[in-house]
């Protein structure tokens, strides 16, 4: 049996149709990465609260307020 070359799927109107499979790895559609934005996300500080700060309601409140300054 020949390999299936086309995908069949329902279009918006509900009719069966066929369309050639897209070129998933086509060099004509390169992925562009914003390196600067990616690096900024990696370098962004992550707030963390210590276990000691989580020991009581007051300490949690104070820790959150400290981050807010």
């Amino acid at each position, binding site marked *: 049996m020949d390999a299936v070359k086309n995908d069949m799927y329902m279009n918006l109107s509900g009719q069966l149709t066929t369309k050639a499979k897209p070129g998933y790895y086509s060099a004509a559609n390169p992925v562009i990465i914003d390196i600067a934005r990616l690096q900024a996300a990696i370098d962004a500080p992550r*707030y963390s609260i210590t276990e000691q700060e989580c020991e009581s309601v007051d300490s*949690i*409140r104070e820790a*959150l*307020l400290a*981050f*807010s*300054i």
Partner: protein
Amino acid sequence: MSNKDKTKNSFEFGKLFLIEYKNYPKDQQDAIALFIKTFLDHGLDDFSNYKGKVTYSWKGLECDHPSFAFTRNNSLWHYHIGIPDYRQSPYFNYHTSDYILHFMLLCNRTKIVLIDTTAHYRPDRTFWLPNPEYLDY
């Protein structure tokens, strides 16, 4: 160490939530901190650890309701924080309040991300959901 050890509960907070938290009244700050403490100690496996009602925010919504996708896809829950006060539910064993704390429940229910504090209902009696920009953490 056993591989059956319970995962530690953790929390984070949205960027806008953190900015606004410092302007909350102290009783509201304390109520939120108490919720955090309770979650860190007990998680959400047993709601009886919480005085206020805690539930997922798509509860009771039909799948085609405009808010269903937003709440479900972002794992939005809310907790009644007791501001200005708690009222005992006449039907169930929990308390409700006018103000609620919105949070995302993530990582197999071991992590919460605090999003916003709002009234439970808008003036038109629709459920008051947080704005999407508050979900940025």
